[in-house]
């Protein structure tokens, strides 16, 4: 009886279809196939194509002409490139202010009083609005003739300042506009993080006499590490992606002083200044390598995390 059933199951194994026998190893690839296909075609392969295009002189329509590293050589002596690079650096550094600012607002709102939920939602509000609208709103806010900013500083006898028309202020003005939604984002991350802070540790620290800043720095902030990591990632990515605000608020001006690499690349490759796809691709490659530095760090952190599980 028992030998009979064993023989039968062996017989079944041999005759089961190839798919049935390999089901566990094939299924994941079947499920992955559509996503991988899309991602390869639209994201992974284009990265390498951009590398290739950066070695050509190409207007996007006619024949490509191979020029080797000439685009990069031109970039090396291009003052607009250095302005963009400098502004990218300013963006990266100042954008990180969104993290402490977000933490500050989160601490301010982390109370249970009447209507606090609505307050939290309304503070988060700027993040939901498109950057195009944020850009418009701030352009009007900064307007030298009627803008709210100049109306306010005018009432105490200062100004007017034409923030977006002045090469020294323009980048900072745009970053301030960008910090508005970004701070809201970091705030919501920290509010969630604060919810999960271990109350027992806080009580223990209180008994040990910790409070205020020391409590924040030594007890709370270490527990908020996951939130800080995400806030850091999204802020860095946001800073290097800054395009919408610049395009809407100043279009790179005045005199190209508010350009960043992402905007300059677009301007070179697709705007009325000409269709220099190869040169644009070369700028994109530089931007990509800056980003790659951070991507490697993100992936390394995630890898450590995965192994820890």
């Amino acid at each position, binding site marked *: 009886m028992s030998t009979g059933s064993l023989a039968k199951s062996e017989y079944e194994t041999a005759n089961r279809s190839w798919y049935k026998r390999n089901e566990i190893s094939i299924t994941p690839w079947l499920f992955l196939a559509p996503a991988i296909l899309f991602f390869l075609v639209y994201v992974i392969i284009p990265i390498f194509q951009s590398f290739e295009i950066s070695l050509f002189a190409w207007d996007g329509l006619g024949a490509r002409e191979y020029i080797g590293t000439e685009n990069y050589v031109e970039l090396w002596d291009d003052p607009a490139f250095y302005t963009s690079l400098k502004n990218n650096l300013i963006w990266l550094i100042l954008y990180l202010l969104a993290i402490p600012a977000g933490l500050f607002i989160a601490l301010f709102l982390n109370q249970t009083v*009447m209507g606090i939920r609505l307050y939290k939602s309304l503070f988060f509000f700027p993040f*939901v609005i498109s950057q195009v609208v944020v850009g418009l709103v701030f352009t009007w806010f900064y307007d030298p003739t009627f803008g709210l900013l100049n109306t306010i500083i005018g009432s105490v006898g200062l100004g007017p300042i034409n923030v977006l028309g002045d090469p020294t202020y323009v980048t900072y003005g745009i970053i301030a506009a960008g910090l508005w939604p970004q701070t809201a984002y970091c705030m919501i991350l920290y509010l969630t993080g604060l919810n999960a802070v271990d109350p027992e540790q806080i009580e223990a620290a209180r008994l040990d006499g910790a409070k205020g800043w020391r409590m924040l720095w030594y007890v709370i902030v270490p527990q908020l590490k996951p939130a800080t990591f995400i806030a850091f990632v999204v802020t860095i990515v946001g800073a290097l992606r800054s395009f919408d605000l610049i395009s809407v608020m100043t279009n790179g001006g005045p005199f190209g002083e508010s350009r960043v690499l992402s905007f300059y690349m677009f301007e070179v490759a697709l705007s009325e200044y000409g269709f220099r796809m190869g040169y644009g691709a070369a700028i994109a490659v530089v931007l990509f390598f800056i980003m790659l530095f951070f991507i490697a760090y993100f992936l390394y952190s995630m890898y450590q995390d995965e192994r820890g599980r």
Partner: protein
Amino acid sequence: MFPTPIQKAPRSWQITYQSFLPLALIFWLLPLIAVALFSIKPEGDFSGGNYWSMPSSFGGFENYGRVFFESDMPRYLLNSLLITVPTAIGAVALSCMAGFALGIYKFKLNLWVFFLFVAGNFVPFQILMVPVRDLTLDMGLYNTKTGLVLFHIAFQSGFCTLFMRNFIKGLPFALIEAARVEGIAEWKIFVYIVLPLMKPAIAALSVLIFTFIWNDYFWAIVLTQGVDSQPVTAGITSFNAQFRAAYHLMSAGAIVAALPPVAMFFLMQKHFIAGLTLGAVK
């Protein structure tokens, strides 16, 4: 709880906090309040130069009416909707499957494929711009909503897969093992066991993608032009050109363009925040 709950603080401090909250909020939303105020002021207020006084009369109906009936705004809004909804559906569908594959199965390349999606999700748009525009032109999809949707699905599937995979990893694996012991086919495990458990993740992700795509501007101007296919973020530029210096109308237009994701956020707040903060807590 940190900081110390306000209820434990002295009464005077409680009152200070409670009255400071609305002030802080007004200050935080000041630029937006200004635009909202502009959008309900009648035209006469602007020609008279009184920008910042209270509206002399309520011009909201007229301003918003003109946005809807005298401009292409409704058309742009429709385009946005026709781009956003298919993208959300497509990206969520692809990533449910990919997330299932990466979250449940152990195979050699698992982590590599996962990191491919994560890394791709972070690349600057500009490195994709020229080849993707070229590809879209070659497929005859330049200046169509389909072209934009296909790209968005592909790019968003990076973030979505990251999200779904981490969500599925958190599900109890014993469920899958039990089903396998029962001899249930793998695809049935996906459809009947995992998918129902993913509902909250699907809701969160759909809301997020809706907002992200609605607010996209860069790809809209790279892959489309004109009123036939451009979404509202790009269309607002031509709208503003039409009503140059008519600040009451431009403000009303900006508010209309911003409203759908805002409405989405307030309606689906729980899902939205759950999606956005996934991973912010261990």
